[in-house]
């Protein structure tokens, strides 16, 4: 068992990347990037709520690692019926990831469950990369530093809501601005979004990720829904006469009003949210319904519908007057404390199918090279099981996908399946991150067009980490 120190990792990742740029898959991508004409770029975040189990997503495929993991979480393997030759966790059924710089893993092999076949396909064709063991950090740290209490640590490491917030906004719950919103702010500031309303778009709840100074999450309606103020537009409610038409016009104006003479702050906010919301929702819905629908069909799952909405919004990018957009979607159900086999497989299926449809839609729109899809999650999970489930962890493994991604690589690190490895906590094998969220997000921001000054302003601890370690784009 070899433990690299951090410096060695960085060197090796960099070398690995240099080698990979000469690979065929990378050459195949070069013309596509050059052909990018519109200057449009979009970041698409997928928040995997609950804490996706890194150990049950990027699976070990070599027998030694596979057996070691199985020994630490037999109940979880049982919940997948892993000994059944038809199981997705039966070792031979794990879909291999052909890691470009795999030599640095000393014979260890990796794969994904077949529910994530789309991920495997994108990885092996160079459109998707894995960023291993990424999580919130204030400085580099390992178990010894934690045990010696000499480490500077993020707050509330294992708490769902706080770690969701820390991933998206670099602080515990209550933090007001997310880095997605701040990226959009930078775009608005530099004139890249003539209509700031559509610079930050959510297809789900308006979480902190998209909250910026000027940028605010705009929630897009479900694809195909035709929005209206029923009382003001469905005539049978108030009648068919001229006076009813006049009343409806006044009602519509009342409903779309942004402000009244309230002094109470909550009332002022409530009325503004209502007025602005109704106005913008209807305006967007009218545009969306007038546009040509995408030929790509999305799965009718929560995430499928959300990514379908994102694709539709992208198809309106010209009309909406914006050349840079940050999108936010979310998928729940990853808090697999028990019955993990069924639960995580259903989630992975939804995730894989939605990603496949999204890639197809991007190719249809000609924007696959202009988007960068990335996952986030509360945290990874404990390697040691609790029966048929796993508990809250810290670091986890994530995906970055898009036509301009230098795919087929594992960036960062995936430590060995060995509780003695210094990047696991002293109990239960929770990963201590080797790549910080700030490093990871800064790489996304740099691709999006932010300069180092802007990035340093958003990510206060960035200087403590080596950004050259992440070359996924």
């Amino acid at each position: 068992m070899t433990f690299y120190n951090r410096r060695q990792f960085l060197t090796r990742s960099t070398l690995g990347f240099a080698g990979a740029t000469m690979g065929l898959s990378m050459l195949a991508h070069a013309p596509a990037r050059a052909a990018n004409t519109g200057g449009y770029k979009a970041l698409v975040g997928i928040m995997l709520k609950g804490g996706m189990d890194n150990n049950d997503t990027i699976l070990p495929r070599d027998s030694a690692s596979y057996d070691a993991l199985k020994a630490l979480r037999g109940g979880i393997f049982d919940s997948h019926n892993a000994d059944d030759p038809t199981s997705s966790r039966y070792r031979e059924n794990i879909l291999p990831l052909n890691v470009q710089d795999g030599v640095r893993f000393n014979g260890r092999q990796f794969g994904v469950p077949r529910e994530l076949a789309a991920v495997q396909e994108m990885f092996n064709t160079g459109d998707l990369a894995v960023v291993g063991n990424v999580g919130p950090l204030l400085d580099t740290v390992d178990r010894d530093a934690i045990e010696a209490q000499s480490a500077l640590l993020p707050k509330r490491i294992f708490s769902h809501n706080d770690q969701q917030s820390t991933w998206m906004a670099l602080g515990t719950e209550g933090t007001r601005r997310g880095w997605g919103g701040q990226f959009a702010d930078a775009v608005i500031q530099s004139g890249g979004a003539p209509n700031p309303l559509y610079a930050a778009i959510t297809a789900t709840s308006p979480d902190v990720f998209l909250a910026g100074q000027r940028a605010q999450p705009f929630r897009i309606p479900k694809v195909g829904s035709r929005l209206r103020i029923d009382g003001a537009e469905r005539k049978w409610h108030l009648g068919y006469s001229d006076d009813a038409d006049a009343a409806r016009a006044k009602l519509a104006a009342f409903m779309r009003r942004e402000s009244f003479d309230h002094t109470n702050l909550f009332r002022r906010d409530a009325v503004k949210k209502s007025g602005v919301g109704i106005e913008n929702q209807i305006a967007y819905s009218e545009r969306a319904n007038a546009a040509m629908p995408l030929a790509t069909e999305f799965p009718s799952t929560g995430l499928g519908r959300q990514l379908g909405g994102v694709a539709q919004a992208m198809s309106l990018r010209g009309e909406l007057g914006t050349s840079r957009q940050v999108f936010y979607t979310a998928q729940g159900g990853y808090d697999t404390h028990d019955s993990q086999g069924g639960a995580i497989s259903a989630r992975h299926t939804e995730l894989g199918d939605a990603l496949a449809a999204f890639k197809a839609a991007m190719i249809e729109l000609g924007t696959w090279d202009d988007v960068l899809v990335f996952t986030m999650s509360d945290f990874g999970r404990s390697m040691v099981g609790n029966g048929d489930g796993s508990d809250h962890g810290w670091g986890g493994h994530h995906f970055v996908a898009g036509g301009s991604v230098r795919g087929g690589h594992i960036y960062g690190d995936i430590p060995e399946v060995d509780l003695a490895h210094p990047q696991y906590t002293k109990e239960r094998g929770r990963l201590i991150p080797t790549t910080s969220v700030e490093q990871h997000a800064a790489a996304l921001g740099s691709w999006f067009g932010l300069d180092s000054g802007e990035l340093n302003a958003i990510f206060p601890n960035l200087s403590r980490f080596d950004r050259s370690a992440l070359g996924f784009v």
Partner: protein
Amino acid sequence: MRFLSVKPIAATLMAGLMLSACGGGGGSSNSSASLGGPTGGGTPAPAPAATKFYTDLETREEAARFLIQAGFGGTDAEIDSLVGTDAANWIAAQLRAPATKTFDAMLAAYPTRQDTDREHSKMLWTNLLTADDVLRQRMMFALSQVFVISDNDFFDEGFTTAQYTDILTDHAFGNYREMIEDITYSPAMGQYLTYYRNRKGDERSGRMPDENYARELLQLFSIGLVELNQDGTPKAGSPETYDNDDIIGLAKVFTGLSGSGPSFRWSDQDEDWRRKPLQMFDDEHSPLEKTFLGTTIPADTTGVNSIDMALDTIADHPNVAPFLSRQMIQRFTSSSPSPEYVRRVADAFDAGSFTAPNGRVFGSGQKGDFAAMIAAILLDESVHDDVQEANEGKLREPIVKFAHYARAFDLADIDVSAEWRFNDTSNPNDKLGQHPLRSPSVFNFYRPGYLSPATESGEAGLTAPEFQIVNEGSVLGFSNFMTHYITVRADDPAGNPGFNPDFAAEIALANDPQALIDHLDVKLTAGQLSDATKAEMADTVSTLLIAADDAETDRLDRVQLALIMMMSSGAFAVQI
């Protein structure tokens, strides 16, 4: 009731009143302490005949306001019946009212079947819309948003949720320590937070106990993450209340619980185990020493004793009172309560006692008393005073807003089972964006510390949990949902039976738009619409003409138009 606002004239009046209070009977002498204040200025007012307290509901506006704070609003008759009474007396009557529960009703509906479809959820909705014990129902709903389970995890296990909601209903005016024990042994929480059939650790295989309940019990159901002052503010430096070693220690406590039956084994559970408390099986309970929050439970302590000791330790933590008090205040009266208000409520909760201005005493005297807590919340001077600060008030939950509408207009024929829209009211785009006991996670529909981005309240640092479920889609969805009930269900009750409103009083006023709006203003917003808003509403309503040949329909249209606007008003969305 407003004479206690801090004005010289009021203080003088108080001084006069105290004389009559001391000899007047009915009141109690302990109110004198709170009534003390500077005198001087103004002309001494003659003492009124009867003792007055700020909790007196003197006007229809005050009565309507109190019903909005404490219950789900009310009909004109209910508002009238409170005028001239003391709010403390209403609370006292509500504490005595028979509890509307669900488990026995479920048994009656499903004497033998275990699969209950979604019927229990509909029963809960029905109770929110119709039950007479409104304060207990409101309390149950509030507690369900702190001690969260979601029936998404129990599709058709109506007895599981019935057993759980009855725990909340039973203890709604009871004791925290007793309630958290019943919750801990409930099949609902056991399954929701996955400690049901949680086994002790196993050194050979490395298996460790599930940490889920240990973590959320501390983070969400008792003490929270940081040490608090009694007023709910974090202590200096925000010291954390526990670390991961505490979780690992406490997780061992919640091992060995399974469904009732002869053994821990799944196959040995009684067929109706979901209807009974979980049972402890010591052979699957961790025999190890369990250390957390500075307490150590010795090795080989039984499971039941371990849980007892753990819950005693947790319930004794000084954070419990401020942590729960602030959240419960948010559910009733204030989205961003002042630290002083939190402290007053937390003190009552800890003392187990609250004395109303009129001398009524609430609570058992035991620490952790919910009756004392709710009386302290609803009878606090800050929610009865006249002052309307820019940062007061509470953004109302969509469920509470709908219940207010339903009760204010005494909807006839409420059969939730026949009302498909109420199978699931969670969709914000065409329904309410909220369904009772169906939040997306254990973190409830919204978080107590939520600051809404890019709002004036958020920039001022005012928490507003309910704004977390207000967005572009939900405001239109809510309006359209309400429009359906206001129009379709009133136009043709025979053709569209169910949830049919009684607009008789409003139709009678419809010839005079100003009078109609004034009337609805009291009933729905406690008279708090601004003059400009009322003027615009009256102008819009008057646009609809009343034709001689179809006057009744035209009057109904006016009422409906007024209500659609009312439902989108800031004063209906935010109670003060």
